[in-house]
């Protein structure tokens, strides 16, 4: 899943990276957000069930609702 920092929360890492890119001459970059991806292997057959479980994990632990939204993608 991807855990994205909410747009209204500051992202010092993103800001720093954008500046560093600018210094390297990549001036076309207008914004940078640094987020996290968590790749998990989950045992189970039922995709809906897995999706539901992972949603729970995100709500409970993996994402902080004050700072972050999340998106889940169940792969093959």
């Amino acid at each position, binding site marked *: 899943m991807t855990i994205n920092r*909410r747009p*209204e*929360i*500051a*992202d*010092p*890492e993103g800001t*720093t990276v954008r500046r560093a890119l600018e210094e390297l001459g990549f001036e076309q970059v207008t914004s940078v957000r640094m987020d996290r991806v968590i790749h998990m292997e989950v045992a189970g057959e039922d995709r809906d069930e897995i999706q539901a479980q992972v949603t729970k994990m995100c709500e409970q*632990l*993996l994402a*902080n609702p*004050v*700072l972050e939204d999340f998106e889940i993608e169940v792969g093959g």
Partner: protein
Amino acid sequence: MRTAVVVFPGTNCEHDVVHALESLGGEADLVWHRESNLTDFDGAVLPGGFAHGDYLRTGAIARFSPVMTEISRMAAEGAPVLGICNGFQILCEAGLLAGAFIANRDLSFICSYVELEVTDAATVLTRGLEVGSRLRIPLNSYEGSWVDPTRSGRIALRYVDDPNGSQDQAAAVANMEGNVAGIMPHPERAVDELLGSTDGNLVLESFLESLVAA
């Protein structure tokens, strides 16, 4: 009056906190994070460090430790609960204090003295201090920038000069009742003139007095 000093795997300031509280005449005992009964204690401190390595998000994993159920109970019953640095981050993750933490504005760890100003004297941290008075206490953190989109935290101490981008320059925050508080700098590191400052005593004495008052 006994204080539980909670130790999570990765906590590292627990002995310093016990040392500081005892040097002020307090009684403090280390309590492992799997403990599920704190009824013998009158208050609790969550010390600094890197609980669970600060992995995932600072404080995120620690808040599920069994001891946190008891910390929540104490908080609800009005007992003094103080989080220092990483302990503050854990209290936020646990929802006992408003807000959350992100990396310092300059993306580097900061270990140095900072100057703080008292902005609210009705919290466990600041009772007996005067609003507007100043303290010199060491800061020691990487994820030290507090954000609170709900603006519901009660700011007890603010940085005189903004070191890390914390919202409203908040250095210490309390709940509405004032019995639960978090402070990002380390008062237990400022208890001895030989080491550079004794201003931390003021904050810790306030905590110890709150135990009696509660």
